[in-house]
């Protein structure tokens, strides 16, 4: 199949960017990133600069890949990261627009690569259980109900990709924060610090320049790990509980 790609090119964080159009031949077995590899090899052969994009595992688990394809973070398929998107979902002659994730808290580094270190700082603010190496009791000392463990897992499946932010008209990171707050808060080990954790993480989120949540739920629709917005409700309850505690 032959495709026309409209790709956002931007040299540096502070330089202006714009779309460039490329033609590339692909086949249906390729992944989207392999199709971009082909384009890049083509550009290199023409002694031009290849398109920069973040990627690593190419299995949908590391959270590195991040582009917006035809207006949707990680492309058209539900529950799928860009690296897992295959070309059989496109057809000959398609025009595909590719842009970086856009949000105030995710400045562009180059082309499709953005800086998501704000997520790391939110975790550093309180997204952990305070336990030093060597302190814990036996792993089976505290039984955890199977369903509870499973719910915690569902939230812990977040890959920190930032698609939720890119999908949100307000550029909010609520789904990401809520996923962590739920993961830890649902487990007995994480309950103890929950109040402080919620407050500190939300404060850091605000400081990083993420927007407010206005219940649009676009985040859930675009999340490649299908993290549920019910986690946001849980986060809001936890916030209220925490503010009662502190007042």
């Amino acid at each position, binding site marked *: 199949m032959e495709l026309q790609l409209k790709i956002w090119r931007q040299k*540096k964080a502070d330089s202006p960017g714009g779309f460039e159009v490329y033609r590339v031949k692909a*086949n249906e077995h*390729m992944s989207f*990133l*392999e199709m971009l*590899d082909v384009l890049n*090899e083509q*550009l*290199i*052969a023409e002694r*031009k*600069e*290849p398109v*920069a994009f973040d*990627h*690593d*595992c*190419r*299995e*949908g*688990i*590391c*959270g*590195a890949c991040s582009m917006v394809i035809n207006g949707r973070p990680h492309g058209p398929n539900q529950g*799928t990261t860009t690296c*897992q998107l295959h070309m*059989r979902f496109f057809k000959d002659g398609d025009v595909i627009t590719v842009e970086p994730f856009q949000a105030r808290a995710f400045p562009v*580094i*180059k082309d499709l*690569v953005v*800086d*998501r*270190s704000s997520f*790391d700082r939110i*975790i*550093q603010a309180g*997204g*952990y*259980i*305070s*336990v030093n*190496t*060597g302190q*814990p*009791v036996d*792993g*089976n000392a505290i*039984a*955890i109900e*199977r369903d509870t*463990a499973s719910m*915690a*897992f569902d939230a*812990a499946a977040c*890959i*920190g990709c930032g698609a939720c932010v890119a999908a949100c008209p307000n550029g909010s990171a609520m789904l990401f924060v809520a996923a962590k707050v739920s*993961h830890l808060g649902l*487990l007995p*080990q*994480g309950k103890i610090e929950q109040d402080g954790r919620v407050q500190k993480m939300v404060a850091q989120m605000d400081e990083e320049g993420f927007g407010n949540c206005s219940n649009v739920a676009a985040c859930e629709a675009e999340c490649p790990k299908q993290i549920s917005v019910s986690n946001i409700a849980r986060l809001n309850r936890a916030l209220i509980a925490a503010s009662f505690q502190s007042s």
Partner: protein
Amino acid sequence: MKLDAKIPEGSLDQKWTQYKSRVPLVSPANKRKLEVIVVGSGLAGASAAASLGELGYQVKCFTFHDSPRRAHSIAAQGGINAAKNYMNDGDSVYRLFYDTIKGGDYRAREANVYRLAEVSNAIIDQAVAQGVPFAREYGGLLENRSFGGVQVSRTFYARGQTGQQLLIGAYQALSRQISLGTVKMYNRHEMLDLVVVDGKARGIIARNLITGAVERYAAHCVVLATGGYGNVFYLSTNAMGCNATAIWKAVRNGAFLGNPCFTQIHPTCIPVSGDYQSKLTLMSESLRNDGRVWVPARKEDAEAIRRRQKSANDIPEDQRDYFLERRYPAFGNLVPRDVASRAAKVECDKGLGVSPTGLAVFLDFGAAIRRYGKSKASVAGKAQPDEATIEKLGREVIAEKYGNLFEMYEKITGENPYNTPMMIYPAVHYTMGGLWVDYNLETNIPGLFAIGEANFSDHGANRLGASALMQGLADGYFVLPYTIGHFLSGEIRTPAIDPASPQFEEAEQKCKMRIEQLLQTRGHQSVESFHRKLGKIMWDHCGMSRNLQGLQSAREAIRNLRSEFWKDVFVPGRADEFNPELEKAGRVADFLELGELMVVDAMHRNESCGGHFREEHQTGEGETLRDDQQFNYVAAWAWPDLDREPELTREPLNYEYVKIATRSYK
């Protein structure tokens, strides 16, 4: 040079306990003055950096990723071993130790492996306390499953995402130390060289990948936790960024590389489908708990399947060859990886492969679906369930156990593995070889430590499933924090290391010159094309089976490719900017050197053991044939000067507790 593994005196089960009570301590006041560089933030690096920070050392941690959470460890699927014996099925520290030594085909060091088994249980406790949501039984206790090469269930898991959950646990512990100020994190920084001052590792040169600046970082010691080098084969299950640069630069500075040719080829991966392919995807070994591996017994059937005239479901039971169950009745589908991989290759070489390329075998869940379906129906009180009910209930159980793997398979291949069996083929997965380390996890360069997949230590010639996560976390949480004191206790009077010294200056200049050379060659071939060519040489001649002639030709071919690279590579862009092609170029240049050493090692080891299968040395039944008289040692290679031959030092392996025997899974 004589290698001293520094194995403590005493009986096997007392060595570590006694070591811990005797190793010199560093007082809290002194810890605050001692700086440690940790390169890598995977399971090994993140757990080490966090634990060292907790102890009070001043840590600088580096990763080329944009966040520590993206390290390749995140992709581990199946699970992590521990000798908890929660299942009451006869497991013990000794059995885990023994299985690991035997699985490694008697080429690992007893004392290290025993210690690994000893600390394995604490890892589970630690992870649970951090909030790792392991799978649980209905009663709320931790659940286990089996992996290859063992007859107990000792593998803990978190659906098919165990590595992700364990890494997030370690990442959160690391994040906590970052917020407390004990660890300073350098994301998107790639180590380009090691700096050795007066014989001790004292720092690194790193490139800031965003600005392109080449920077100096000094510390009292350096820990490399930079993962494996499977990507030397181009196609592997490793993430795209995995590379050998850090350990290779250590070798170029005088460190020994242990058993570089010991590579693990994993039997259950999605087969290669085209030449544009950038990587291969693993289907976790846990699938062999329930999946049965087979090929058609008759060549005609295999041919018809390849031509798509027949499908797997058209082949009746009695026309299928479950070749692992046939050849290895005692372990069946759960033989170790090297054994399973070779067996699949043998069948495909006979013309029984089932994909259009002929390089694939089936992994079939049909029997498991029916078995689980029946048992679920009976629990639900259905005495005589119909076939459709059985199928439906069985699929639910399989989905719960392996759902994400089945989804991943379908996303890639476009085929539904609930309906037709998966097609799988072996692929490069893990490197048992790595930097040679002693009992302290210290290399032969004082002050340089290596942990996780980056070292050679515990897996001998073949790693058992679910043991890499165990080893990475054992090293980082529970071993290095003690053993590093062995070195650092002697450094309490050493003031902060000065990055302005001539050694730093020289190393920095060397890195800059190399970058310039890469950019100024301005030839006609892309970095990628060199990497592909190297990968093909390695796979064809230093892969699943090897012979002298092939290895000789491979060495020649790699040397030619290397000189071609430096004459004809084209790297676009500049040095002082974000330039992924430049990063890749440096990594491939290092692979082109490392690959040759792997071939040299494979050539010298004139025996077969574990994943190292020399065609000249096999039993009548096609099993590996070791030569314990001649090769019962670790091959530690030095190669500081590429114009001379690599130099071999042997560390003899003394088996005091395990009786060395022929590995049998029949």
